[in-house]
């Protein structure tokens, strides 16, 4: 079972652009957070924890829990829910 996390189709979103996630190009729209772009591309786990390597993804959605951390343009531990996707940015999610 693959979960289809979906962009609401009734919304016009402007001009699509590309970001890379672990080297693969992925479609994004202006104003979207990295969490949105990852979720819409089918990622549910964004990282594995240090202590037990267990998968984590979106939890609070408002920047307080620090569970959705990813690396953006080499800067580690960025909250995917609070970081806007920019054209060409390179995101790394940790293997889970």
């Amino acid at each position, binding site marked *: 079972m693959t*979960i289809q996390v979906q962009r609401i189709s009734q919304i016009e979103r402007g001009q699509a652009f590309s970001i890379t996630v672990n080297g693969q190009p992925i479609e994004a729209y202006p104003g979207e957070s990295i969490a949105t772009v990852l979720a819409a591309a089918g990622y549910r786990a964004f990282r594995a924890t240090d202590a037990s390597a267990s998968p984590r993804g979106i*939890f609070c959605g408002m920047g307080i829990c620090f569970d959705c951390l990813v690396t953006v343009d080499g800067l580690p531990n960025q909250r995917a829910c609070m970081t806007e996707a920019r054209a060409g940015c390179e995101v790394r999610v940790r293997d889970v």
Partner: protein
Amino acid sequence: MNTTEIAVIGAGPAGIAAAVTAANAGARVLLLDENPRPGGQYYKQPPSSFHANDVASSLSENIQHGRELIAGLNNPKITVCANTLVWNITADGILDLYAPEGATRVQAKRIILASGAYERVVPFAGWTLPGVMTVGAAQLMLKGQGLLVGQKILLCGTGPLLQLAAVQLLDAGADIAALVELHSRTEFFGGGLKLFGQWGKIGQGMAQQKKLLDAGVPMKYGCVVTRAVGETETRGAVIVKVDGNGRPIAGSEETIAADTICMNYGFVPATELARLAGCEQFFDTHFDAFATKTNDDLETTARGIFAAGEVRGIGGVEVALLEGKIAGAAAARQLGYAAQSNGHDVLKEWQKARAAFDSLSSMFAVKRGVYESIADDVLVCRCEEIRAGEIRDAARAGAQNLNALKAWNRCGMGRCQGRICGPIAAQLIASETGTSVESVGAFTARIPVKPVPLGVVGASAEPHATGTAMEDHVGYGAARVK
């Protein structure tokens, strides 16, 4: 150093109302918020490049109300700083800020704290699995990003927010697997009677009920989720019936298929900046959490620092808007501006709105038995991965407050700094030691109130270097100890 007359922290309903009121009185206002756009969580706005009006009527109305409120910020006296984290505050009005462009320091003559609230959660087995999130997360992704977080969504927790969120998700095209409400049907609808006289709200609640029933959503009253099913992501939930104290009734388990579980057990005031500034707190029994003490002008015990909205007690959007106006006017008056004084009628309206929300909060309080029934092997501290049993062991061995617990086993020492686990751990310690949640206290607020790169703390006036402390240490050959 930059200076301002009034700094408002948080651009939600309270912060916007405060900024607009103070600016209209003539004061120069700096409005600071960590999010990309004003509105807060309640009035979360989609990016300006998104165009939609027919997504879900329940949502577009909320977005439109927010837009009207936000339009008031279009005032030459107000400077809005988005994407800006306030990570330090001092009692004499200094704020340290961190934005992607770098770090800055601001001296404010008056400060209005409108930092809002967090969602209260109650852990169950598997609650760290991707696909388990707060109800607010699902709403924010929908409102602010136009994204449906799942196809088959189960909502659990307590209170009227669950059915509002269920309707919003349903309208947006999700299948609602079930609505799992802690309180029994009798308790839930009895709670609704507390709204007596507020016919608009009762009407909304009944319309939501009808919509969910018409859509065939299973309404599970008097139940809680005990486990998220799934190995690497959520596949379903095990729910169980509970007795009047919130304890599971053996043999009543039921498994419901769902790809997403959304949880909300109410709200907890976001008080870390208030505590850091030395503002005295009080324990509010209506919603079982600490909040910030103020006088009728909403000035805290730290002179010149005001508090408005959820930070001084969970009260909802109407209270937040009123308090923003009261605090904004009071702060401007202290600076010599002729802001309208808060007349008897405003105070009366405010107190009435507060009282109504207090009684509602009490009706949907989380029962002690729910916390006491969290299994020992369930994670409580998501960051440091500390389990309920470890917290109970520490409490029995002598960790009788949250700070002692943190020193004992690192609970609350991770990146969330106890925002998620603190209220839960406090309940566990109180139950285990037979004391009150109030006496267990809160974690001491520390700078930075949220993680920032080390370089920001070291030289807050300078642009920060890339990399965080931990990653840098690892780069120099340090090993992770856990």
